[in-house]
């Protein structure tokens, strides 16, 4: 058994199956709560626990999947480029908005962590949680955080953003579609953006741009923290 599960193919095949199941469930239930990534992670954990497979074995294949994170982040550059016209027209509100958003996110996380008396490692893990996972992972490990905790926090934040986005727009009277889009992208990255796309084309595009720029802002702010 150990020989089979320690093959890199095991981790890769298990991950792909788990993700497929996640996508199927998500399509059936049509709710942001049934997030495919969340389902896939829970499924893989369940399989590893039930069959008593060491995480190290799973990681033989897992490491290969993780290798694609950097190219996937780089690919975000192309999605910013594809919104170039919108970006040129509204660069000032976008840049100022994401700069404020990224700062407020990190400050509010820090203050709440202090109120809840969480330790330094958890604070470092949670600080970048509003930005897209690949960037959050890098910032977290740079600050001395725990990457898996960061991944979990990013997913929770994204799901919450996707669920509450329409409600927040109503409660806080956000009438400007550009403002709504940038805000969704800044507070809940790609998962929130899926909701922004449903709200309208401007909101979707703005949210997409905000993911990348908020990410870069967060990286820059983190430089002063480490």
């Amino acid at each position: 058994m150990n020989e089979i599960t320690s093959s890199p193919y095991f981790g890769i095949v298990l991950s792909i199956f788990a993700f497929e199941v996640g996508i199927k469930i998500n399509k059936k239930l049509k709710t942001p709560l049934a997030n495919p990534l969340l389902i896939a992670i829970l499924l893989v954990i369940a399989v590893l626990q039930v069959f008593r497979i060491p995480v190290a074995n799973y990681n033989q294949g897992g490491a290969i999947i993780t290798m694609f994170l950097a190219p996937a982040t780089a690919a975000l550059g192309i999605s910013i480029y594809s919104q170039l016209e919108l970006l040129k027209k509204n660069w000032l509100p976008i840049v100022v908005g994401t700069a404020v958003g990224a700062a407020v996110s990190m400050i509010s996380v820090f203050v709440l962590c202090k109120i809840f008396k969480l330790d330094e490692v958890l604070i470092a893990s949670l600080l970048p949680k509003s930005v897209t996972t690949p960037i959050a992972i890098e910032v977290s490990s740079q600050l001395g955080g725990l990457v898996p905790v960061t991944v979990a926090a990013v997913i929770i934040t994204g799901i919450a953003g996707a669920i509450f986005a329409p409600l927040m727009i109503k409660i806080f009277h956000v009438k400007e579609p550009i403002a709504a889009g940038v805000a969704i992208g800044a507070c809940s990255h790609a998962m929130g953006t899926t909701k922004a796309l449903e709200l309208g084309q401007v909101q979707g595009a703005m949210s997409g741009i905000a993911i990348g720029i908020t990410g870069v802002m967060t990286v820059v702010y983190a430089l002063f923290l480490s």
Partner: protein
Amino acid sequence: MKIIMQIAIVFAICLLGQIVVSVLPFPFPASVMGMIILFLLLLFKVLKVEYVREKTNFLLQNMAFFFIPSGVAIIENYGLLKGSALKILAICIITMVVTFVATAYTVTFVIKWQNKRRKINE
């Protein structure tokens, strides 16, 4: 062959990102540098979107999949989280709302300020 070439271009950009980061005097995520390099190469027309379209579409459309192993590793930190799970959940949701409001109001404010200036200029 086309797809292999595209993979080579994207990987080369990632490698370039690592090289640039290694000479910077401060720590900067290599993958984010790769993102900036790709954006600049497209902006200055060094690279055409067609050269990398299929590969980047593949990466962007399957983005979530690549995070599965990073998420699974949470079982190794379970002990640390046991007591703080609810607090972390609360922090994630509260700060998400605060960030949304701050960003939305800032953007609205800047747009209104721009419109006012435009009117004055006219």
